[in-house]
């Protein structure tokens, strides 16, 4: 159990690092998936609500440090979706691929909706860019989780 816990923590850190390398290190924009959101959402399913929200807060602040306006918007969005993600365990048991797909899609859409609410971004992007980005996070998250499960033998 402890081994699985550490393995999953390493997996989450790895997703965050890949996200930073792709987006900050290589400057790839929307062409690269939002692995930070995927990491927060996947981690939240295995954490206590307060710990998940704290992880969301920290990663949100990290993302906010590159924003010029609305500092803290990502922190709010990430901590909120992490909190909901952790609470979702009370309603939905298990981590089937179908559930994870829907969970990642809705999580990313909610994260973007909160972010748009708190920033001067165009609200129109919620109908155009957000569904595509959510789909991208869903696919990337599923692939990453599939790889993790294949390596660790976790079901």
């Amino acid at each position, binding site marked *: 159990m402890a081994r699985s816990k550490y393995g999953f923590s390493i997996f989450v850190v790895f997703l965050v690092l890949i996200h930073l390398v792709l987006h900050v290190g290589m*400057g790839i924009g929307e062409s690269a998936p939002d692995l930070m959101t995927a990491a927060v959402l996947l981690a939240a399913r295995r954490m206590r609500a307060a710990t998940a*929200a704290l992880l969301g807060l920290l990663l949100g602040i990290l993302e906010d440090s590159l924003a010029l306006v609305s500092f803290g918007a990502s922190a709010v969005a990430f901590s909120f979706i992490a909190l909901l993600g952790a609470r979702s365990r009370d309603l939905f048991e298990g981590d089937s691929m179908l559930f994870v797909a829907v969970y990642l899609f809705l999580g990313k859409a909610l994260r973007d909706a909160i972010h748009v609410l*708190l920033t001067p971004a*165009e609200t129109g992007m919620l109908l155009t860019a957000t569904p595509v980005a959510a789909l991208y996070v869903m696919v990337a998250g599923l692939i990453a989780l599939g790889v993790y499960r294949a390596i660790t033998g976790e079901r």
Partner: protein
Amino acid sequence: MGVVALALILYALPTEYQSPVREGLRATVLRPFLAFQERIAQRRGRTVDVAAIRAQRDSLAALVTAQASLAEENRRLRALLALQERAGDAFIPADVLHVGMATAESTFMLNVGRAEGVRVGSPVLTPEGLLGVVWSVDEHQAQAIDWTHPEFRVSAMTADGLAYGIVEPRHGRYPEEALLALTGAPFHVDIAPGRRIVTSGRGGVFPRGIVVGTVLGIEEADTGWRKSYLIRPAVRPEGVAQVLVGVGRSGREADLSALWHVSAAPDPLGADSLPPLPALDADEDTN
């Protein structure tokens, strides 16, 4: 819920409390990633499309040289007229680092900062014209917005100085469709498609005479008093790798018209008719 409340407090904090957190994270956790992109940019400059990069560098060098000779001429003429010497404009070259995060959309990092003389409000130029303006400054880094940013505004005029207005971004369905618009142009003046729009120097941020773009056509004629025109921007932000950052005087007191061969008429609200605007504070953060 306590953590979410903490995040909301962070969101509501005044800028002066947010800035140290932002600067601290950029200088520590994010530093390796930004340095990585800097190295990639430098390597790309050595390997990929050397001719294009060289052309861009040559154009930037030509701009600096032309500006230096103008400054020298200005200094001599002012000396002949026994006028007090004004601080000239100076530009420093910088590498552009694109941050691919959604939170940093329409912004870019520069590998120069406060130590190199960059300040909030410093204009960012390319050989083609105006790219953006510096928005926040760290010791050896700065973050700037390009013209697609919702907060971007620049006082502009037609190259012949007949019509003045404010240029602001117009967003399409996709980022590549973004254009600019000259708003508040006088109703009685018709600006033909193809006319160049340049910065007017009003507002004290951008020097006068930098090319902003060319007129595509009329956008709307609202309330019968003002017209808006769509503008094709002179610079597309996506492909820019190197820029010049203004570290000298800006606004009405600076005139870069000659660099882009703009025959702008004297500003009716010129430097002599209005009191000088207060200079932007180097430590000020406009966020």
